[in-house]
């Protein structure tokens, strides 16, 4: 279906809370009237009943994976399941559930796949500790190798002949550089 729909038709895609908020909050705001805003203009209504909870939901959703998408967070995605899950999270936050509980809820249904921050378990041990171990082992081996190399016998100071030759070469090089 090639879409040339007017925007109002497109908007009839099912939305969950925001319509509700619009139907209730907008008339209420209109009825109460704006306070210190120019005549006719109103302060925009934040989506969701409670902006703080909304922010909380989006923060949480940005660490969760959209299951119907190609690698997007639950916060960014417009897929139907993402919209539903965001709504679900909103309700759980409103009920006072903790982040841990909400994550557990989703993991129980979709597995660890839904978390973008991999949980620290036996099989993710290497994932979380690998990088610092890599860094430490790398630097430590560096230290040991360099120490061992430096312990080898010193070739001794250079002779006067070598010193003279070096001086000549350097003088010639400086001429080239000028």
């Amino acid at each position: 279906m090639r879409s040339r729909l007017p925007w109002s038709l497109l908007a009839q895609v099912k939305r969950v809370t925001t319509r509700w908020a619009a139907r209730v909050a907008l008339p209420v705001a209109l009825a109460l009237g704006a306070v210190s805003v120019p005549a006719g203009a109103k302060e925009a209504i934040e989506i969701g009943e409670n902006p703080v909870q909304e922010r909380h939901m989006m923060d949480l959703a940005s660490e969760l994976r959209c299951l119907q998408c190609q690698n997007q967070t639950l916060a960014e995605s417009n897929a139907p399941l993402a919209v539903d899950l965001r709504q679900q999270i909103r309700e759980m936050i409103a009920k006072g559930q903790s982040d841990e509980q909400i994550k557990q809820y989703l993991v129980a249904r979709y597995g660890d796949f839904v978390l973008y921050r991999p949980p620290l378990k036996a099989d993710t041990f290497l994932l979380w500790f690998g990088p610092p171990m890599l860094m430490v082992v790398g630097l430590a081996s560096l230290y040991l190798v360099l120490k061992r190399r430096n312990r080898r016998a010193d070739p001794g100071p250079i002779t006067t002949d070598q010193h003279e030759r070096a001086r000549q070469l350097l003088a010639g090089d400086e001429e080239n550089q000028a």
Partner: protein
Amino acid sequence: MIAELGHFSLMVALAVALVLGTLPIVGAARGNVAWMDLARPAARAVFVLVVFSSACLVASFVRDDFSVVYVATNSTRALPLRYKLAAFWGGHEGSMLLWVLILSVWMFAVSVFSRHLPKAMVARILAVMGLVAVGFLLFILLTSSPFERLIPAAEEGRDLNPLLQDPGMVAHPPMLYMGYVGFSVAFAFAIGALLGGNLDATWARWSRPWTTVAWSFLTLGICLGSAWAYYTLGWGGWWFWDPVENASFMPWLAGTALMHSLAVTEKRGGFKNWTVLLAIFAFSLSLLGTFLVRSGVLTSVHSFASDPRRGVFILLFLGVVIGGSLSLFAWRAPKVGLGERFGLVSRETMLLMNNVLFLAAAGSVLLGTLFPLCLDALGLSKISVGPPYFDVVFVVMMTPALFLMGIGPLARWKQAELPQIAQRLKWAFGVSILTALVLPLAMGRWSGLAAFGLCLALWIFAATMVNLWARVRSLPGDLPSRLRGLPLGYYGMLCAHVGVAVFVTGVTLVKSYQTEKDVQMDVGDTVAIGPYTFQFNGITEGNKENYVFAKGNFAVTRDGKPAGTMEPEKRQFLAQQEPMTKADINRGLTRDLYVSLGESVGKTAWTVRVYYKPFVDWIWAGCLVMVLGGILALSDRRYRRSRASESSAYDATGTVVLPA
């Protein structure tokens, strides 16, 4: 007809590349001048043939030839010309042709700018690049030709993905590929040196400018990709640690380590094995990235349609190239002598630490990207590794390197004293910490993250300035002549390091202080964010060549005074199902204002997302300053000096002929 010509041209190019990949290398081993001399003309022939083939594809797009499958799937009649050109690399097949095209551009460049190199060296380098070209040309001809015909021809094409109809699409892939593919030159130099046994400071000097150019392009390419995602995707993000992004970032990390390692090999003759290994790594990671994007092994918003058979081919190719080069390394490297000794505290050691840290960082990104695949392959569990992991791990891995960036340039070669360095830097250190502790308050709210990041950025900047001051002080003459006396390569380093400081500042401040509001606005409504107020003034509708749009109008004020108008759009492309969001961004030196439309609600209201992003443009400014550093380094006088004297010092096999 044109498509067939394009296809045929690739076949001829394959044949020539085969010759290029075999005869010169054998010739170099045997001292056969005739075979070695084949390298340059063969490389140029490949270039001409691939350019011709690309021209055929471009012609098919411009002529709306929908009998070519690739054109039919990536274009429409109404597509603006510049996007018909960009559609060349809009899909898998075309992007593979772009890969080969850019490889042939680099081959041509090497064939032209290598007069000063010994014949055997040039022969080997071009031959290695020829072999890589053989692999890709075979892949294109056997599995992914952009010239496949569609019979019967389509009436109209399926259009280029709307997200790609943007100037970003015209610039980002070519720049990125110039970088990515450009590391093949450093790789070829390394293989050439391993084969020829002449891994020394001179080799490093030849190799270095090629690496710097490729690195500069790659930095620019990644920067463009990030900036493009920022304004195109509608939620103001600029880096997602998506597998395809990681695929371009890992070569960058290895390439940065390579550049630093090459400096040591050139100046001190040390780190030879490291440098060769890093060159192999950088290009291997480029190839690995090419595999990951097209094989269907990982999910990504950027990935092309996948096909296991294509994946097998590329994996085999990877096995041959990477496996072969690492085997060559294992065989030859033990015989390469160590450079001169250097103290435990010295610039060499710091640069070696830099190598280790950057490699560890690249390894961590690789680990995070492949880990879900590994767990799944072992039948363990199915996990996701995303930004929460990478953000933490990467910052931890990079912090020591950023700290070292201040100290390293001040350390002397061979032997340095920590107390002396500390003496020089104590003011820089103190100033950085104090300023960093206080500065966040100027942003309105103290933040530990901001203090930490600012401290690192200020440290790098201050230490770099100390370095410059110390260097200038030791020269004779008045200030202007002193400054002019310093080599451009040195300025390049300063510039690139400052670029990193700017980048870190941008990232830190935007992450600590950005705010957003998700609101529903009717005509006349206002929303305040930061010191700005936005008023929604309604929608105008209209249409362009291949889409209809709804454009929102927002008046921005700050403290009552007008500060601009913003017009985000919602575009519905005629050939697509999903509408596309085009955010509007009001850019400033110290902040970006970002507005994007959501959906329409009722008759006149719309959901809108408004962002206040302080210092976000410093992220890309920092990258551009790094690129500038690369350009400065390339403009250094020594690369422009005549090579006539050098080239005569070598005979046909590349052995130095000492003056009588």
